[in-house]
């Protein structure tokens, strides 16, 4: 449970991907996502995963990017199984090559889908995320809530670990007994965690009020997002990529194996 939460943690980096304007990165991830949705062909999906892998290598987030993909494995397997089952019944024959191929393509596509946005989240700080939302004219109150939720995830992960350690020191064995006993085993962990989270949020609310949060209607920002020439270049490249993907799909149907 704790490692899963730690996977969401942001690690600062200085690669060219990290330094891109978060809006461009959002557009990049969206472009990859849309392209994935447009094509069912395994070759194109492979191409997209290759692009995502290259981005992960450039941004030096390969290890954690692979972890995200691994984390999605149960979901991917479930999608494959469901597809295969439904197709087998509708085709009226099991082990049909088309059925297998199409189920595989669907599951494979899911990997590309999930991986596209992990590129964005792995290289964007919570602050940048907040600035992006502000640029999209989302009220600061919601932006703040969203950003602090993300920022508190690692703190929560740490707290969870401490609580688990404390309870295991009292002889709690989480992997013992039947399913019901296992669920009961989580009560001693969840209760202190919820108590701590509630206490922490009250503290945060008080700290914010002390600093006059929401005192003035119109906010100004110290740091604002500005597009640099690099960002525009990236934007142009992504637009070209997305544009050709759409064009090839709808107006010039290529025969792809």
């Amino acid at each position: 449970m704790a490692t899963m939460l730690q996977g969401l943690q942001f690690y600062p980096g200085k690669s060219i991907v990290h330094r891109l304007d978060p809006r461009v990165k959002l557009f990049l991830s969206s472009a990859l996502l849309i392209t994935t949705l447009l094509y069912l062909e395994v070759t194109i999906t492979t191409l997209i995963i290759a692009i995502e892998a290259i981005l992960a290598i450039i941004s030096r987030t390969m290890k954690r990017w692979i972890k995200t993909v691994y984390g999605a494995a149960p979901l991917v397997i479930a999608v494959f199984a469901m597809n295969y089952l439904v197709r087998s019944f509708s085709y009226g024959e099991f082990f049909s090559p088309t059925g297998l191929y199409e189920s595989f393509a669907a599951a494979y596509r899911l990997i590309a889908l999930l991986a596209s946005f992990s590129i964005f989240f792995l290289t964007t700080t919570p602050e940048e995320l907040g600035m992006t939302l502000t640029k999209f004219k989302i009220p600061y109150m919601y932006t703040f809530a969203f950003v602090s939720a993300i920022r508190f995830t690692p703190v929560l992960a740490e707290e969870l670990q401490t609580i688990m350690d404390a309870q295991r020191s009292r002889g709690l064995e989480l992997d013992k007994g039947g399913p019901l006993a296992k669920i009961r085993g989580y009560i001693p962990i969840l209760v202190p965690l919820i108590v701590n989270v509630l206490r922490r949020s009250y503290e945060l609310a008080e700290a914010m009020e002390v600093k006059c949060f929401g005192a003035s209607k119109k906010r100004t920002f110290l740091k604002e997002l500005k597009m640099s020439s690099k960002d525009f270049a990236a934007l142009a490249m992504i637009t070209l990529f997305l544009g050709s993907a759409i064009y090839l799909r709808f107006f010039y149907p290529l025969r792809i194996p």
Partner: protein
Amino acid sequence: MIRIEEVEYIYPNGCKALDGISLEIEKGEVVALMGENGAGKTTLLKHLNGLLKPTKGRVLINGTDTREATIASLSKKVGLVFQNAEDMFFSSTVWEEVAFALRNFGYEEEVVRKRVEWALKFMELEKYADQSPFILSGGEKKRLALAIILAWSPDVVALDEPTTGQDQLQKEKLMEMIKLLNTQGRTVIVSSHDVEFIAQLRPRIILMKQGRIIADGRAEEIFLEEELLRSCNLLPPQIVSLTTRLEFIGIKPSLSHPKHVAEEILSKLGKPAP
């Protein structure tokens, strides 16, 4: 009793918290782990009941390698009291809170009852038995955390930063408890950077810095070495600072009780104690 051999521990994030620790603690010793934040005190304590397993080297508790035993079976021998007591409370009553671990360890209900009553009495908490653990004061929470551990009577009691956020009265109570536990023949290990508290306890001190042990000796000796303490961001106890500054009139720097130091000063001044 406790044998730590060349232990190295690296956290999953790559941080090296212990860097070649070798240590032996005999039964019935009182030991203080001292050092600044991040020196590795808590990490070392977590090795004693197997919550963390060494990356290199090994930890032996009564001859058992911690890698070959479950946390539950090790915890029965080494009771670890965490710094933040609230991290472990979840029951609706103080009584249930203490009984939880005993039931995990599989004691008979009759034994559970007796032990809970004994632990609550020992920690002067019996009047709260039917109350929620969350309504207790800071000091009482700390005592409840200790009662929870003492209920199953571990041979080793390890306390992580027991004095943070405690007032003087609570500290004195804690001191009494530690001394009492020691007279019962238990090993007590305290991690702390509360110099005055440890000075009063006068244990064996293990000074840690950046995951290494840089000094190991009696409090009476270690606390006289100002340079050494300063290198760990610690200051000597006030009584040591005072006696050191009075060395020129013939007072020996020491960790004596203030009363004795006062008598010594008065006799040097040629005035009788009132």
